[in-house]
């Protein structure tokens, strides 16, 4: 565990962070929490076909994303990185459009946001981070790539290949594993041989850091150190943020079939948003009324995003054909005519 880490129990500390930063972290985490709640409601109302909750992982995501320079660095997410997107400044209506199934990758501008498209192949985007980072070094720039993946994806060959490539090339990558302890229905002890994901870093010639993923101050410190190290040209770092998926894998899941309530309830009580709120008050970074104002603003923002995505227009059917290639092909043009004649509403 790095300095300032809470070791997974008791209160957390934010004394090492500036008040402005802690209030910003709180605003993002609170917004993500409220948006998560709204998203689950939208799924219940039939607006979203399904949703994957980030509840309980807000500190891991916001703490790491906030360590990046959103104008310089690039994030490679998979599909459960809503709080990271929020903290990185992504257009969240466009992000949540992916959950409404308006477009698989989401409707935000990947290049402008410097936040990769939503990707359902866990582990798949991790080598993209390495390629981006190698390219960054080749052009003499100092941006850092941060790749998110989970304990499940830590078993994927792509993750191992990527860590090896990054180690060999000394690429500026932060491999950020959110170990939420459940890969759908499979727990860590059936997923992670050797018992530690961060320990694997040694084999790839990079530092491996285990951090309390519900302690946003500790996550931010670990991520900042890894980002600075990468930016200095000293290569990649693997961070394992130990957290917990308190909600089902997705709204289609039934966790009662594979885990008991006791463990989940224990982790619910160790709520990262509550921990940060208490730490801010303890550090004197804000008072109750200031935090209440932030709560109100966060809820308003979540509602704005919710209403925006619920009201977003469905894509036109012609878009089926638009982006397969940079231009069309004769065959696609022919198939588009078939669609127009036989399918178009």
């Amino acid at each position: 565990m790095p300095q300032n880490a809470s070791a997974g129990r008791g209160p957390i500390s934010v004394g090492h962070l500036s008040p402005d930063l802690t209030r910003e972290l709180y605003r993002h985490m609170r917004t993500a929490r409220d948006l998560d709640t709204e998203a689950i409601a939208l799924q219940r109302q039939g607006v979203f076909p399904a949703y994957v909750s980030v509840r309980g992982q807000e500190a891991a995501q916001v703490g790491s994303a906030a360590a990046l320079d959103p104008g310089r660095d690039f994030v490679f997410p998979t599909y459960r990185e809503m709080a990271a997107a929020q903290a990185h400044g992504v257009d969240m209506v466009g992000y949540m459009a992916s959950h409404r199934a308006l477009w698989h990758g989401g409707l935000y501008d990947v290049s402008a946001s410097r936040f990769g498209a939503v990707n359902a192949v866990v582990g798949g985007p991790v080598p993209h981070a390495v390629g981006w980072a190698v390219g960054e070094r080749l052009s003499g720039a100092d941006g850092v790539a941060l790749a998110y993946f989970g304990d499940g994806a830590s078993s994927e060959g792509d993750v191992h290949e990527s860590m090896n490539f990054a180690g060999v090339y000394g690429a500026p990558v932060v491999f950020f594993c959110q170990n939420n302890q459940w890969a759908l229905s499979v727990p860590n002890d059936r997923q992670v041989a050797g018992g530690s994901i961060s320990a694997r870093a040694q084999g790839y010639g990079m530092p491996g850091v285990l951090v309390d993923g519900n302690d946003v101050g500790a996550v931010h410190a670990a991520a900042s150190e890894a980002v600075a190290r990468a930016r200095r040209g000293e290569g990649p770092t693997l961070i394992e943020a130990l957290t917990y998926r308190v909600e089902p894998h997705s709204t289609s899941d039934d966790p009662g079939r594979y885990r008991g309530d006791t463990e989940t309830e224990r982790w619910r009580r160790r709520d990262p948003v509550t921990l940060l709120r208490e730490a801010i008050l303890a550090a004197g970074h804000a008072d109750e009324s200031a935090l209440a104002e932030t709560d109100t603003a966060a809820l308003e923002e979540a509602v704005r995003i919710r209403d925006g995505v619920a009201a977003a227009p469905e894509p036109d059917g012609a878009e089926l054909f638009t982006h397969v290639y940079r231009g069309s092909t004769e065959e696609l043009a022919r198939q588009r005519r078939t669609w127009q004649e036989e399918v178009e509403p």
Partner: protein
Amino acid sequence: MTELIEHTTATATGPTVELSMQQALNRALRTLLSEDGETLVFGEDVGALGGVFRVTDGLQKEFGADRVFDTPLAESAIMGMSVGLAMNGWRPVPELQFDGFAYPAVDQIVNQVARMNYRTRGTVPMPVTLRLPSFGGIQAPEHHGESLEALFAHTPGLKVAVPSDPGEAYRLLLQSVRCDDPVVFMEPKARYWDRRPVELGEPADPVGTSRIVRPGRHGTLIAWGAMVHRCLQVAELAAEDGVDLEVLDLRWLSPLDTEGLAASVRRTKRAVVVHEAPLTAGLGAEVATRVTDACFGDLAAPVQRVTGFDVPYPAGPLEPQYLPTADRVLLAVQRTLEY
């Protein structure tokens, strides 16, 4: 093999030199690396060694180890890294050493490279050209003689090119790398050492067009890669019996040149498609269907397919019995003539 005169439709102009396909590809890569500072060549053993087929010979020395570099041995990461490089503005030209080793990278090729432009609604193009030494004919070990074109041609978002001679290799590689869509560039290993005069000019034919390498009146042989030469042999043999066969080099397997196929078969009224890959669900089925749809009223016989058998690619001594032989193609031609 007998040298045959080719009638190419390409009208490129440039200096003519005699090169093998492997040397022509090397020249094309040099041209590409010279003209665009964002082009990168990488893969297993492409640096100091110059590639196992020497296609990248001397490139690292000429362009530096930043732009021509070796990777660790992991095909999926090579293709995944290509995605990230493209996202950062580079134009990656990765090599996977042999056809069969593309299978470990299929997730990145199919799920990522092919779809990123679509997934991002055109905001993140993937100008990636995967160079893939392909097909059989050199008595290589297992997984070194595979024909994956149907898989790639079946994948929306990918383009697929297959050169059949050195000049084509030069021009098609220039086109593929300059294309902003991802291209799987399948190099027929059996033709790497085929030397011919090459015109080092600009490609003249658009992406997605086929070419007639030998005009004829009585039937069209449709092929790509090394099978183009098999078909030219067959045409020579058939000519001895007064049968005048046209040979069409499809060369772009995606997009498919339906018009070019139809134009040829409308004239000749008969078609035989020849490929190394197994029969069932092979690209020959798609070609036959398109030709039949376009030319049904003109066809004098059903389109014939002469292909590899539906078996795993065999070891050396059996290879010549697996690959379409001249006799099998001639028998298929005969079936169309006697129908």
